[in-house]
């Protein structure tokens, strides 16, 4: 089943076309990657899909409904949740508090009930606590849950960012360069984490630079260059695609994973 449909999406900033008429779709249960050389428009495309930018033309449909043009929090409520590059977490909170506060969706109790401490609100708070601990354990953060985020090492923060997104119970998780700046060891662990997320029934779309990781875990790869889609297909096909190789010429050959 097609979960995400990107349909002729274009984004212009003034006279600059950052993303030009890009279309592709993501099937439910897939790990799909968007790759491209530096400045290809990956980040812009990512923001368009996660509703942090509004396309100049074209639309993004999620599970049949249009999500482009919606507010980010509305898209999140529909099941499209993004992570951020690098170490974007709530730095002044502990790891556990980070994930607790991210449990905002599907709650029954309203602000007044929360304020007055209604039975429903208290039950939900307990459920949120349990769910948060479970997510942290699942992503290997259980032992640092009471540590404040500012004190956590870099690698943990990336995982915490994913834990925050998981708490919003996404159907489609958008990962913004999840392997950037990682050593091979960390990348392997992060790849396992992404596969673990898919095993929980969450579809994953990631924007990434690290070719080796992308080739290893993706079911489907979309390649963009200068804002336009130049290829899409299974990893083996992308590796042999001449347009892709041409686009990456001049970059480090190793990037293609040869």
């Amino acid at each position, binding site marked *: 089943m097609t979960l995400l449909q990107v349909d002729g999406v274009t984004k212009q900033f003034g006279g600059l076309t950052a993303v030009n008429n890009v279309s592709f779709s993501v099937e439910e249960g897939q790990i799909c990657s968007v790759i491209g050389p530096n400045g290809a428009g990956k980040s812009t495309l990512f923001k368009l899909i*996660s509703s*942090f930018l509004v396309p100049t033309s074209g639309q993004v449909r999620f599970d049949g409904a249009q999500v482009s043009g919606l*507010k*980010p*929090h509305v898209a*999140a*409520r529909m099941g499209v*949740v*993004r*992570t*951020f590059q690098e170490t*974007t*977490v*709530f*730095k*002044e*909170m502990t790891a556990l*508090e980070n994930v*607790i*506060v*991210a449990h*905002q*969706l599907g709650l029954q109790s309203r*602000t007044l009930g*929360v*304020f007055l*401490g209604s*039975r429903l*609100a*208290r*039950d939900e*708070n*307990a459920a*949120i*606590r*349990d769910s948060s*601990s479970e997510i942290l354990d699942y992503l290997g953060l259980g032992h640092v849950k009471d540590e404040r985020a500012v004190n956590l090492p870099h690698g943990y923060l990336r995982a915490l960012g994913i834990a*925050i*997104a998981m*708490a*919003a119970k996404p159907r489609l998780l958008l990962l913004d360069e999840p392997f950037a700046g990682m050593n091979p060891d960390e990348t392997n662990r992060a790849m396992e984490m992404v596969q673990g997320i898919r095993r929980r029934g969450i579809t994953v779309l990631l924007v990434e630079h690290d070719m080796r990781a992308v080739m290893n875990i993706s079911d489907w790869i979309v390649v963009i260059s200068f804002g336009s889609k130049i290829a899409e297909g299974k990893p083996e096909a992308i590796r042999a695609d001449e347009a892709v190789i041409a686009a990456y010429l001049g970059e480090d050959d190793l990037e293609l994973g040869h």
Partner: protein
Amino acid sequence: MATATDPAPTRGEKRVLGPFLLIFAPLAAVLFVAIPFVLADMPYWLNVVTNACLLSFASLGVWLTFSIGRVNIAQGAFCLIGGYTVGGLTTFGGLSFWLALPFGGAAAALVGYIIGYPLLRLRGIYFAMVTLSLTEAVRLAFLYFGTMVGVTSITSIPSPPGITSPMAFYLFAAALLILGYAGIWRLQSSRTGGVFRSMRQNEELAASIGIDVARYRVFAFTICCFMGGIAGGIFAALQQNVYPQSYTVADSINFMLYCFLGGLEFVLGPIVGTFALVVSFELLRAIQEYQALLYGILMIVVMLFLPNGLLSFFPALKRLSGGRK
């Protein structure tokens, strides 16, 4: 690790109640036992602490907007709106103070709610600047509109029925303050408080997990304005008058300073800050011409040595006063 059969929620509530009482009980003791006892025969000082209670109440609201990451310099405007509403309804409308007071809060809250949506999109220094001008704009609005209809100020506002002595007025103000403290403490320690803190730390990340940032921002700001309106309404009845210049930009800045001075991490912060500044200002009155100078030096010293507010002086309080866990 709690299982489904554990009375986990109840345990959670108790854990929250402990630190709450640790601050609440001493605060109540100071407000309702120590101060009335010491100042019983000193009407002047009783008036000072009554003022401090009401100013603290308004500052608590400003503190709430700090908790969502906005420097709010508009509280004077909402005190003015509350003051005119209560003054007008009691003096011209013949309404009892007790009936008029909720209207004072509601009028300020309504204005805050309406302008909150566009205003709170601004961040940092821009929001601070606009709220600063808002104080002046509201003052001028009352001045010019008042000139147009021929009533710029409302004088001889009746005292609240049932409150006949300075002590009674003080106890009323203290009761309001402790109620406000408990309410704000409860709010910030609840799930909603977590949402507020998350917005202060990163609004984009908060939006990405489904938090309607704009709505929560306006919610916090509206509560702040409501508290300003209530405080302003009571001030009008206490001073029995309200003028356009009852609250100027300096007053709005003071509300912000009270929060800074007490400590932004603590719900108790605005209360400590207000009392410290109001009382020290009164004490310095004895040396007239040097008052402003000394006041300024004191402020600089505090900011230099306690940049996180007076309350950061007690590291133990940090965990207990309930500002941030």
